[in-house]
C-alpha cells in the first residue's frame, strides 16, 4: 500500500501554490493536512503527478472581524477546536471529525474542499450560512458555502483555484445551535448527521437553518424543514414533525452497514434531536 510516484513541491506562498497548480494542471493536487488525501494516495485511489504542499504557504490563522470568523485554509482542525472564536456548533461538531491525532494535522480548508459528503465541517459551514474564499488564476472570489458543494468529492472550485479561507458567521443574538451525529463507532464516518441553527425571539423561532449530511452526497440545507419551523413556537411536537419531514426529504443510497430506510429514519431522529437541543 504505497503511493504511485509523483513530484512534490512546497509552496511558500499562495502565489507559489497557484503557480505550481497551474503548471501541474489536472494532474496536480494540493496537499493540506493529508488526512484524507494520503490514505487515498496509499490505496492508489488517487494518482497525481504533482503534489503541491500548502502547509508552508502561510494560509493558516483564525481572525475575528465584523461578526464573522475567518479561518485560513490550512488552519488545523485542532486549532479551531481550541479557539475561543469557534462557533459553538463547530465546537460541538469538531470532536466528531476523525480523532484527536488526525485533527492535529487535518485542516479546516482541506476538509471543506475535499467535500466528503459525510464530513462534519462542510455541514456546519452550510448550516451556519458561511462562505468560502477561493483564489485562482482569475483572482479571488467569495461565495456562499452552499454553492461550493456539488456531490461527493466534487466542488465548484475552478481548475487551478484554491480554497484559501472559510468564513464562519459568529453566533447572533437569540441563536442556539446543535449538532447530532451517529456513527457505528466513535470517530468513524457518520451514518447520518444533522445540524440546526435557530434564532429565537420572544418564544418564537424567527430564523432557522437545518442541514443534514452523510445521507446526502453533499451537505444539504432542508428549506422545507426551515419553513416549517419559522414563525412557530418551539415544541417537542414541532421538532418531531420537522424530523419526520426531514426523513422524507433525503434519499440515501445505503451501504453495507445500513439500509436506505434506516438512514432516512435516522435522519429524522437526528434532525428532531438537533432542533430540540437548539431550542
Amino acid at each position, binding site marked *: *500500500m504505497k503511493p504511485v510516484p509523483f513530484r512534490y513541491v512546497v509552496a511558500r506562498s499562495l502565489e507559489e501554490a497557484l503557480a505550481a497548480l497551474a503548471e501541474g494542471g489536472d494532474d496536480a493536487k494540493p496537499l493540506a493536512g493529508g488526512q484524507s488525501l494520503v490514505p487515498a494516495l496509499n490505496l492508489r485511489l488517487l494518482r497525481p503527478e504533482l503534489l503541491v504542499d500548502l502547509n508552508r504557504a502561510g494560509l493558516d490563522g483564525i481572525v475575528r472581524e465584523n461578526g464573522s470568523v475567518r479561518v485560513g485554509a490550512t488552519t488545523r482542525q485542532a486549532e479551531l477546536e481550541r479557539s475561543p472564536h469557534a462557533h459553538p456548533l463547530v465546537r460541538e461538531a469538531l470532536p466528531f471529525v476523525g480523532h484527536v491525532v488526525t485533527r492535529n494535522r487535518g485542516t479546516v480548508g482541506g476538509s471543506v474542499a475535499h467535500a466528503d459528503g459525510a464530513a462534519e465541517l462542510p455541514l456546519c459551514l452550510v448550516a451556519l450560512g458561511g462562505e468560502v474564499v477561493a483564489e485562482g488564476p482569475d483572482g479571488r472570489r467569495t461565495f456562499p458555502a452552499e454553492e461550493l458543494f456539488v456531490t461527493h468529492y466534487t466542488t465548484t472550485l475552478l481548475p487551478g483555484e484554491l480554497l484559501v479561507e472559510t468564513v464562519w458567521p459568529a453566533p447572533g443574538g437569540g441563536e442556539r445551535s446543535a449538532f447530532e451525529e451517529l456513527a457505528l463507532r*466513535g470517530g468513524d464516518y457518520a451514518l447520518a448527521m444533522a445540524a440546526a441553527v435557530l434564532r429565537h425571539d420572544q418564544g418564537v423561532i424567527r430564523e432557522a437553518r437545518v442541514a443534514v449530511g452523510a445521507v446526502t452526497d453533499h451537505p444539504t440545507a432542508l428549506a422545507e424543514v426551515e419553513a416549517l419551523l419559522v414563525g412557530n413556537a418551539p415544541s417537542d411536537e414541532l421538532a418531531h414533525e420537522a424530523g419526520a419531514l426531514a426523513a422524507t426529504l433525503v434519499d440515501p443510497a445505503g451501504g453495507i452497514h445500513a439500509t436506505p430506510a*434506516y438512514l432516512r429514519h*435516522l435522519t429524522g431522529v437526528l434532525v428532531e434531536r438537533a432542533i430540540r437541543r437548539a431550542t
Partner: protein
Amino acid sequence: MGTATARETRASWVGQSVPRLEDEALLRGRGRFMDDLDPVPGAAHAAIVRSQLPHARITVDASAALDAPGVVGVLTGEDVRALSRPFPAGIDSPVPFYAAAVDVARYAGEPVAVVVARTRYEAEDAAELVEVDYDPLDPVLDPVAASETDACVHDRSFHYGDVDEALARADLVVHETFRFPRFSCTPVECYGVVADWDEAAGSLTAWANFQGPFTLHGVAAAALGLRGSRFRLLTPPDSGGSFGIKSSIFTYVVLIGLAARKLGRPVRWIEDRVEHLLGSASSTQRVTTVEAGFAHDGELLALRYDAIEDVGAYVRAPEPATLYRMHGSLSGAYTVRNVAARNRVVLTNTLPSGLNRGFGGPQLYLPLERTMAIAARRMGLDPADVARRNLVPAEEMPYRTPSGALYDSGDYAACLQQALELSGYERRRAEAAAARADGRLLGVGIACVVEPSISNMGYITLTQTAIERAQALPKSGNAEGALVTIDPLGGVTVRLGTTPQGQGHRTVCAQVVADELGIEPGEVTVLSEMDTQTVPWTVSSGNYSSRFSGVAVGAVQRAAAQLRAKVDAVREHLEEPELSLRRVAGSVHWNPAGLPEGMEPGLSVVAYWSAPNLDPPDAEDRVASSAAHGFIADVCAVEVEPETGEVRVLDYVTVHDAGRLLHPALADGQVLGGFAHGAGAALFERHVVDEWGNPMTASFVDYVTPTAPDLPTPRIGHRSTPSPFTALGAKGIGEGNTMSVPAAIANAVADALGRDDVELPLTAPRVWELLQRPPEGGGR
C-alpha cells in the same frame, strides 16, 4: 534470602502478578517484530497481485511487469503448480489448494502472482502491470444453498444417547436456526515473511510471524516437497497479536518461499492491511439448526445440532477443525445425555477460514446458549434457574460428557451464583422488567460456557469414520518441549516453542523457572523466538487452544525441576548444601571430573510434557477433545435505544474458573482481550461480501472493530479449582469470553426486545431493522 531457604519455604513466584519481562523493550520501541528483522541482507520486496473476482478462470501475463524499473522477477500460478504440490487438509476436497490460484481463482483477494522488486514501492508499481484476464464463473456465496450441492465436501453425523426418544417426551421443543457471522480478530500487526532458498542444499529457511500449530509446518513442507528438516522456520521474538489468525500465514510462507526459489534471491513480503482483510483468514461462518427438548421444569433432555460450516474457498488446514474443536463439549456445561450432531462443511467463494480466537466456541455457544434462553422465555422460567437445573454438578467431577470430553474440575453452579451476585442479577432483572413496562428496552442475558483448552491432536480424525480411523495412525495428546540451560556463570536461559503474541509467556516461564531454581524471575532469560532447527518442539507446538499455561508450562517446569535435581545432587556431592547456583554451575562446567559418579556432564535439559488425558477418538466417536476445561458464567445487561437501534451494554460481569492462575494480572488481561473480541463479534464485526461476492470490508474503515469508547469494561470475578490434568493446575483463560460474550449479549438484546430472532452483529442499523419486522419464532 538464600536459595535453599527459598525452596524450603516453598516460595512461589507463580501466582503473582510480577512485572512482565517483555515490557521494557516494547515500551522503548525496541521490540523485534517481523518487519523489524533483516535476517538476510539484500532481500528483495514482494507485492502480491490478487484476484479481483470471487470466481473466475484466469490467465496471467506478467511480461509488462518484468520490464518495469527495479523488478527482479514474477512468480505466477503456473510456477506455483510446477514447483509445489497442493496443501493437504483434514478432509479430502475436490479443489486442489495451492499457494496461488492455478487456472481458477476462487475468492476475491486470492494470490494470482508475486512481483518481486528492489523496493515495495517498485513492486507495487510493477504489480499493476501484471495483466490478469478474468473469465467470470458463478460464485457460490450462500452456505445453506451450497450444502445441497457438490460444494458440500464433508457430511458426518454423530449420535450419543437417544435424541429422538427424548425429544418425543419433551414438554417443549425449541427448533431454531442461528447464524454466526464470519469475523476476524485482526491483529494490529499484519503478516510478514522473509524467505531464503538454498538451491545447493535444496532447502528453505523462512522467517514469519507464524503462531503454530506446528502441524502446519508439516503441511507447508509437504506443499514445498521438502522434508521437515529442509524447511527451517523461524519466528521473530515479538509478534503483534495473532489470536489464531497468523497460523494461516503458512500458505504465504510457501508462496514467498517459491518466489525466492524461482528468482534465486531472498524475498521479503510484508502484508498490508487491505491484503490482510482480503487474503489472510477469518473465522468460519456457521448456520446451525438446533432441536432441543426440555422438560417442564427446565431440564434439557436432548440436543440436536445440524451445522453447516462455511470454510470459504478452500479447506485450509487445520480446517475443518473449527467444527470439531468443541466436539467433546457439544452438551456445553449441561448434564444432557442425548446429543446428536450433523456436521457439514461447505466451500464458498470467500476468504478461507482458519484459527480465530475461540475457534469453534463462539459458533457452538451462540446456538446453545440462545436455545437455553429461548426455552426459559417460552416456559416462563428464569434463565438462571434453567441453567442451574442443568449445570454439571460439582460432585460429578471429573465428568464425562456424552461426546467424550472429560470435564476436569470446578463448581459450575457456585461460579454462576458468584456471577449472579456480582451483577445484582435479581435487581437487574426487576429493573429491566420495570423499564420495559415503561416502554424502554432493557434486557438481561446470561451465558454459561465451558472453556476447553489444550486440544487433543486426535480430535480432527473425527472427520473420518471409526473404521477409517482404525486403518490410520492414531492421533492423540498435546505435547510441548522446552529447553532450560544454565551457563558457566549461573545464568539461566529458557527456549520455547510456544510462539507467543503478547500473552506474556516469557514472564510466566521465568516465574516457573525461578520457583524451581530458587532465583528471581528477572534472572531468567526466556527466548521466545522459534526455530524449528534448534528449539525443542512437537507437532502440537505453538500458541493455540490456550495450551500455554497447561502444557508448555509443564515442559518448562519439568526441565527446570530436572536441572534443580542435578544442581542439588552436585551440592550434596560437594557437601555444600548452600552453594550458590553460580558456583554449582561453575563447578559442573569447569570440573566435570568432579561430578558425582555416573552423572552426565552439562547443565542443560530438554523436557517434554503431554496432557495425560487425551486419547484418540473411540469406536463410538467419543473424543476427549481437550485436556482442561474452565468454566465461565457471564451476566450482561443492555439497553436498546428504540429510535436508533443502538445497543448499550450497561453492565457486564464475567466469572471464571480457570484453575490456578499463574499470573493473575495476565489472566485478567486475557479475559479483557477475549471479551473485546467477543463484544466485537457481537456488536460490530463481520466480513461482508456483496451479492456478487466482492468483499466490502477490505479496509479498517469498513471492517469495523471496536475502539475504546465503544467497549464496555467487564467486571471480572474468579474462582480457582485447579485442573488435575495440567502440570500446575492451570487451565486456559484467553478464549472463553470470545465464546461466551456473543451469546450473552445476544441473550440480553433478545430479552430487551422480547423476541428470539436476534442476529449478530447487533449494530444499530441492524437492530433497528429488526425492530421494524414482526418477530420470527415468537415474541414476548
